[in-house]
């Protein structure tokens, strides 16, 4: 177990190093280099030269690379071009919003996806099953930002079932502790704030959960069908075990193995979906930060840090998946 973790951490380090190197050299290979990127093409030669010196871009590339690596290792990603603040601050301010949204989405996707996929498999070939297949196929074919606008148009305009955007009603006096608004409300006993934040969370979470939900349903269904055909299920039936025991102990546990992998992959992919969802609902998290850093002149320091963060999250999630595999499947433990 320990060996798996340490090997994965080494792999994580190598991947991050490669990714940083790629980004670094790509940025410097752009026509005009990062200075042009910062100033735009109409800057005067004087300002250009000043900035080049100030940022150390007049030094040899390997010196720059060395300094870049040192800065990254010490958590110094420089300052945002847009706001001038340290990148670390900008990111840590936006992080809880996205984390809250992503956690809500994955709870929805797993909580609904696994049971629905299971039920569809038990009704194989019947109306419910076919309906599930069609709905999930459409689910993975819908551009999710369009789905977001659709839900917003239907449920926030005429009927006002949900708030159209934002994380919390403006003017509501809420205390921030963790930055997770729903949690903060509970911690500070401001339950109205908690409920309000939860209310704002519903539509974005549903939008973001759509694709993972559809995929989890499909994988669970396929996996349960595979397991139901296995010989050991016949053995369990031959033992005369009651149906619930067979399902819980023998079917579900084996069927969940491939589902766990997919949940991991989809959790990683949520960050990409968050970019779209946050723009639709004006959510103000990392996704919005990405959109802001690429619209107009590009905020490369922020973008660079976000790319690394996404990679770290993705790889860590997959590490967790591998570890949970070892818990569920004894065959992996030995290897």
């Amino acid at each position, binding site marked *: 177990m320990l060996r798996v973790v340490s090997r994965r951490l080494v792999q994580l380090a190598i991947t991050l190093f490669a990714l940083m190197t790629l980004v670094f050299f790509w940025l410097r290979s752009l026509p005009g280099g990062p200075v042009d990127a910062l100033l735009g093409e109409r800057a005067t030669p004087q300002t250009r030269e000043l900035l080049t010196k100030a940022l150390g871009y007049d030094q040899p590339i390997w010196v720059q690379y060395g300094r870049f690596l040192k800065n990254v290792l010490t958590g110094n990603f420089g300052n945002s071009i847009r706001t001038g603040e340290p990148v670390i601050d900008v990111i840590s301010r936006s992080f809880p919003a996205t984390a809250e949204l992503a956690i809500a989405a994955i709870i929805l996707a797993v909580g609904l996806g696994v049971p629905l996929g299971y039920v569809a498999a038990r009704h194989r070939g019947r109306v419910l099953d076919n309906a599930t297949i069609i709905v999930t196929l459409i689910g993975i074919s819908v551009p999710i930002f369009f789905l977001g606008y659709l839900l917003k148009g239907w449920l926030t305009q005429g009927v006002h079932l949900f708030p159209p955007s934002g994380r919390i009603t403006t003017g509501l006096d809420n205390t921030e502790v963790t930055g997770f608004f729903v949690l903060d409300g509970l911690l500070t006993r401001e339950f109205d704030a908690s409920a309000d934040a939860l209310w704002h969370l519903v539509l974005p979470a549903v939008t973001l959960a759509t694709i993972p939900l559809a995929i989890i349903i499909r994988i669970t269904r396929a996996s349960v069908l595979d397991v139901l055909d*296995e*010989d*050991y299920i*016949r*053995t*369990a*039936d*031959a*033992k*005369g*075990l*009651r*149906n619930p*025991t067979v399902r819980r*102990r*023998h079917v579900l*546990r*084996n069927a969940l*193995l491939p589902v766990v992998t997919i949940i991991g992959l989809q959790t990683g992919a949520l960050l990409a979906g968050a970019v779209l969802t946050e723009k639709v609902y004006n959510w103000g998290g990392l996704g919005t930060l990405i959109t802001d850093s690429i619209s107009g002149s590009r905020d490369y320091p922020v973008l660079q840090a976000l790319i690394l963060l996404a990679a770290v999250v993705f790889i860590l999630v997959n590490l967790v998946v591998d570890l949970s595999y070892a818990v*569920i*499947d*004894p*065959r992996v433990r*030995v290897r």
Partner: protein
Amino acid sequence: MPLLDVRDLSVVFQQGGKPFTAVDGVSFTVEPGQAVGLVGESGCGKSVTSLAIMGLLPRRGNKVTGEVLFDDTDLLRLRPQDLRDRRGRDIGMIFQDPLSSLNPVIPLGLQVAEVLERHQGKKRQEALREARKLLDAVGIPDPTRRLKEFPHQLSGGMRQRALIAIALACKPRLLIADEPTTALDVTIQAQILTLLKELVDESGTALIMITHDLGVVAGLCDTVNVLYAGKVVERAARHELFAAARHPYTHGLLQSVPRLDAGRGGRLHQIRGSVNDNIPWPDGCAFAPRCDRVIDACIGETVPLEPTFRGGALRCTNPVPQEVPA
């Protein structure tokens, strides 16, 4: 009164295209403590017969007719939950491939113990203690350690022993063994068969042995039913069958077993074609296209299963003549 009385059992599969009759009016009985063999090539319907008796065929896509009387109760007409009460308690079953028949992610101990929990109402700890004894009884060394192990950590022979322990855990009155040795090495095969014979003799459990291997039958069974294309074609006591098989198919099967005393250079007997050969006539003998002794009557009319004077039964219009003892 027989323990198990199978009467006119038929199984028709109906998936997609035309229906396929896998088991066609099979009848046989098993007396308490008796060992009965169901013998035939793959595809003859012997495994389907056993699954039908247990009610383990997939719920959809097939039609089962006839009667399966166990203790005078028709298993085919029991409610599913009542059948579940009997499976594992009154009837145990062993399958062909011990690796795929054991759940890969559940420790062996629980896989044995759960039968005891289900049918004898034992608590987990008590059931596990009993499971340890059962593993010991089927000859698994170091059973305490094995309780916590998983199927992939055991050898093929050990896995089959574990399956036997599961099937016999509740001391059932009938054990159905579906090709229990086919997936094993030859040396292990003999061990498993010896173990089965000991356990069955000891506990008085009746046995249905399903196999394509006449050698297995010779060592274990009292009575043998030979199946061909879903029908019983010959039934005889073991000694009768090996001494004087009457049906050309049985005869052919016996001839195709390699014998150590046959001498070198002697050719093995072959049965022409395969069981999948289509039968171009609706009635008549299914074996006729492959039969050496085929006559016109084999094709024209339905051949009934008729009792023989030695207590067996035979479905043939032109049987192999009985050899006159020299």
